């Protein structure tokens, strides 16, 4: 068994999980852990069983992405949308998280509520495990120092309403500007009301359209891992990614790769 400094980051869904994993690999130099024997003890508790006792055969296996670099081990756990705080609360109640974790962070979006209300909601749900968990946020995201360090980042920028795809559209302009132009023109032909889109579905559909051109039949999750949405170039040009990396660096107590290394 391996025991490094462990940090757990909870996100809402597999897209966020893929984004965070890509950021850690591309901008911080982490490698993905792909074998069970490389897992730190604490992450063994997160290995899902299939099927669960509910007997449902087609549930997604919620194995976190585990990323390793030197003495750091980061698990990115996708908790299934609004269930994230409940699932994390249950899972962490079974772990001596105060002494096992060097850091614990939450990355969520603000598609249906204001960042301040999202922060308050997560504080209320997690305060019995982490009394110092942030109850408010600021423009750069919050990291509370201590053991463990506690962080909250609300996509896209801790201030305006949005989702991950809001940032990905900006990434697309950097990496695939021609495809993005065509995709936006195509998507603009649809009326939100007619196709039943709400809030930020237009951004999601735009990213999906580009994804399916880059790899026909591919998903948003796969394209995030396999293509160049997140790169040193997008980091250099997009302020939201720079702010997010600053927050992540504080939570992990390391620095991102220098921009000049692109």
């Amino acid at each position, binding site marked *: 068994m391996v025991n490094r400094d462990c940090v757990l980051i909870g996100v809402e869904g597999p897209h966020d999980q893929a984004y965070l994993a890509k950021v850690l690999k591309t901008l911080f130099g982490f490698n993905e852990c792909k074998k069970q024997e490389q897992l730190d003890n604490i992450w063994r508790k997160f290995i899902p069983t299939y099927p669960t006792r509910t007997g449902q055969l087609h549930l997604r296996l919620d194995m976190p992405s585990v990323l390793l670099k030197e003495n750091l081990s980061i698990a990115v756990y996708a908790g299934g949308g609004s269930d994230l705080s409940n699932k994390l609360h*249950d899972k962490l109640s*079974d772990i001596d998280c105060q002494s096992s974790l060097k850091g614990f962070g939450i990355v969520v979006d603000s598609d249906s509520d204001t960042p301040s209300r999202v922060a308050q909601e997560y504080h209320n749900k997690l305060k019995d495990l982490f009394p110092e968990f942030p109850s408010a946020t600021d423009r750069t995201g919050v990291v509370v120092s201590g053991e463990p360090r506690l962080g909250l980042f609300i996509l896209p920028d801790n201030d305006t309403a949005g989702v991950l795809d809001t940032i990905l559209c900006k990434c697309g302009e950097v990496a695939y500007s021609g495809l993005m132009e065509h995709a936006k023109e195509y998507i603009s032909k649809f009326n939100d009301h007619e196709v039943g889109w709400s809030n930020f579905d237009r951004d999601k559909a735009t990213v999906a359209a580009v994804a399916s051109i880059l790899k026909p039949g591919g998903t948003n999750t796969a394209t995030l891992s396999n293509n160049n949405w997140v790169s040193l170039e997008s980091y250099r040009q997009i302020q939201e990614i720079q702010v997010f990396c600053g927050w992540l660096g504080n939570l992990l107590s390391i620095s991102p790769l220098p921009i000049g290394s692109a």
Partner: protein
Amino acid sequence: MSQKNLESLTIHSFRGIRGLELKELGQINILVGVNNSGKTSVLEALSIYCHPLDIGAWLSIARQREQGFKISRTPLLNSLEWLFARDATIGSEGQKSGSIHISSNGCYTVRKMNASYEAIEGMYVSDKQQRPIGFYDPVATSEDEQLNEEGGLSGTRKGLDLKINLDTFSLDSFIPGQNIAEDFQLWENERFFKFSGRKNPSLLASTVTPASHRSEIGQLRLFSEARLHDFKGDVLVLLRQMDPSISDLEILLAPGSMSSNFNIFIQHDVLGLAPLSTFGDGVRRLLHIALQLAAAKGGILMIDEIESTIHTEALQNSFRLLIKWCNQMDIQLFATTHSLEAVDALIAGTTIESGLVLYRIEPKSGQTRVIRHPWDRLKRLREDLGQEVRW
């Protein structure tokens, strides 16, 4: 909901346990943890705490782990010493000593128990012919022993000075709580039952170990109690989980037996009347558990390795019945398990009203940490999230 005998239990020191807190105890309390984490020690501590002044109970618990051996491998007093926390084994004068400290909340009249011992030595003079036979222990035979002029044995002998302090309370607010202090001197190779202390204060408690179903001692008495409590029908329902052909239980003298030793016989649809001893471990252990249930009405039942000898397929139904009776008979159950299948079967066989709580015991440096999961969270962890909860 009425108050339980034990609402919480803190084992401050006992064997290797330090500062273990079982908060908000349920009606059904499941203890899990890795090997050597202290699960069985919790049951032992609880057994003693339920009979704090009964030296016979102390000695029985001290020897419980050697139940499978024909001859005990550890001298009885040494076994007793090992019950004590070992952080102060050598006192200022160089003598061995140790302490046990347990406290609780709930209806049980004892609130706190402090016990300590010191190793002592004394002269041993006895007639060889009168030497106690029952407690002869070859390991403990002193090399210092020699024949005296009358043909008896003399020499030094080792012993323990055991001091027990209890704080008790009364449910009647007009009766003040008491502080009880007792002192016992226990000598090797003596008939310890002479120092059996007293039975009260105490809490009715029964223990099932992985091997206790193999002992025939006390089975007839337990069976009689079950019969008198009109519990035999329920016992049969439980046994049929193992073998649906079991139809009745009888106490009989074996045909052709020269002695008057009665035995429990099972009326079986295929085998006819057959002695209990001819059945497998599963049937014998379930019967033993059922009989101990009847004996623990209104008290505490402790089962070490609850899944032992029970086939996976029979776990859920067996546990469902066991828990139903614990609830009906107001028995607070404390059970250890190594088995995730047993944990899952316990969850499946209960509802939130059953009062099931799981405690995971984790030895840490200087303290024994406990993770507590109430039934609803345990159910979510196992059934929805598939999380391992034993370590």
